[in-house]
């Protein structure tokens, strides 16, 4: 195969679907063929049956709604502070010098290790879930945005100055629009991480949510439900990711 040579859209879709098919085939072979005990791994049909039951008998839709709200809430909270702070750090070196060392340090603190502390401070309610997502998302988001804004093409900034731009005008009319597509990409990436944090938060000390359902099912050895829960998370992640990507492409048609 020739490296870097593009393939047709049809072939691209077919190959992508093929792997899903292969994956399900292997799973079916392992379970229906009796190679794996049912207690450890449910077969695909049992998984679907359990999944349907989750919705009809256990109010799983409500769990999903809770999880989505936590992700979105924590993410919006983190973004609403990280975006302005990241832009300020990227634009003004003293601001960067002030915050950067602390934020760099904080991003390496494992967010999940904060759970015991957060439970002490905020109980096991919504505040604790949002706080965990915030801790996990805010620091890396801020740093990545600061780096992108700081890497704005110098010649564009200089051109703006020779056209009479003020310092504030350069931030508003050059740094911001120049890095907007990359900031949107960063938000998309971090939203994906928020999904892993919310499940961790729900696995420990929670009464609702997809993660809570998964822990409950573990106690009952219901691997079908666990797998169904995981797949639901994957699907929501995929859909939100595609939506985000499509939005970015529309908003920033001038790029790419």
């Amino acid at each position, binding site marked *: 195969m020739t490296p870097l040579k593009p393939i047709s859209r049809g072939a691209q879709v077919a190959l992508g679907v093929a792997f899903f098919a292969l994956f399900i085939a292997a799973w079916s072979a392992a379970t229906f063929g009796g190679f794996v005990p049912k207690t450890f791994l449910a077969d695909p049909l049992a998984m679907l049956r359990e999944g349907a039951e989750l919705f009809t008998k256990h109010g799983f839709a409500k769990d999903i709604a809770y999880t989505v709200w936590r992700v979105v809430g924590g993410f919006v909270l983190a973004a609403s502070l990280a975006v302005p702070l990241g832009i300020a750090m990227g634009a003004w070196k003293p601001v960067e010098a002030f915050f950067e060392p602390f934020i760099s340090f904080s991003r390496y603190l494992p967010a999940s290790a904060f759970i015991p502390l957060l439970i002490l401070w905020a109980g096991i309610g919504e505040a604790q879930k949002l706080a965990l997502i915030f801790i996990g998302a805010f620091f890396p988001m801020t740093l990545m945005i600061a780096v992108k804004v700081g890497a704005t*093409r110098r*010649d*564009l900034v*200089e*051109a*703006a*100055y*020779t*056209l*009479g*731009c*003020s310092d504030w*005008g350069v931030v508003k*009319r*050059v740094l911001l*629009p*120049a890095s*907007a597509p990359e900031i949107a990409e960063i938000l998309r990436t971090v939203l994906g991480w928020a999904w892993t944090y919310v499940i961790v938060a729900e696995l420990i000390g929670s009464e609702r949510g997809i993660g809570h359902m998964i822990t409950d099912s573990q106690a009952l050895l219901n691997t079908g439900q666990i797998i169904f829960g995981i797949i639901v998370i994957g699907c929501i992640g995929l859909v939100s990711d595609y939506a985000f990507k499509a939005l970015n492409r529309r908003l*920033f*048609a*001038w*790029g790419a």
Partner: protein
Amino acid sequence: MAAKLLIDAVSRTFPAARGGKPTQALQPTNLAVDDEDFIAILGPSGCGKSTLLRIVAGLDAATSGRVLLDGVPIVKPGPDRGMVFQSYTLFPWLTVRENIGFGMRERGVAAVERDARAGEFMKRMGLAGFEGHYPKQLSGGMQQRTALARALANDPEILLLDEPFGALDQQTRSLMQELLLETWEASRKTVLFVTHDIDEAIFMASRVAVFSARPGRIKHEMAVDLGHPRHYTVKTSPEFAAYKARLTEEIRAEAMKALVEL
């Protein structure tokens, strides 16, 4: 008559990088530019001619000396000195029309007036029909025409051009030179044009300032009396050849020095 732009003993030394010695890019340099003058600054690459232009633009600070525009010292960049760079510096998120209107918008010119004026410059630069295009949809030549229109639309006192056609192919380059020359002949806007291309310098400029090798300074000035309007066929005239022969000698000596030092 007082000079429009006065470069008075301007030098530039870049501070030492870690462990190294400070680099002098520019020896104390003098140049007086009259109103409506078209001066080409000609020199081998790395001689400091772009550094001088950047100091005039206010994008870099002189280590010593000063630059006066209409008698006022230059301390920072401003719309009175329009600049076109060698790299493509159109704002990629703005259309051609919005790019040209960028400076006017910063000054608070109303949208209607802005668009009218941008339209005028687009017509003059042969960009009509491309007002809604984004820079990535334009060829290099069209991008630089837009950049030129963007600088001119601001109505600067002086136009600073830093090898604006350096990245273009030979044919496009020739056409751009003619376009710029026509524009200058029509508006008589004072121009400072940095280039390493001898033909380009002679064809467009009324005066050529030759730079020495790094650390550069202006070592020679030569008036080009080829008359106006200048047609591209002048490039094959004997007078043109004579100017070219003289400048080739000057530049060659400096380029050799630069080679030996590197």
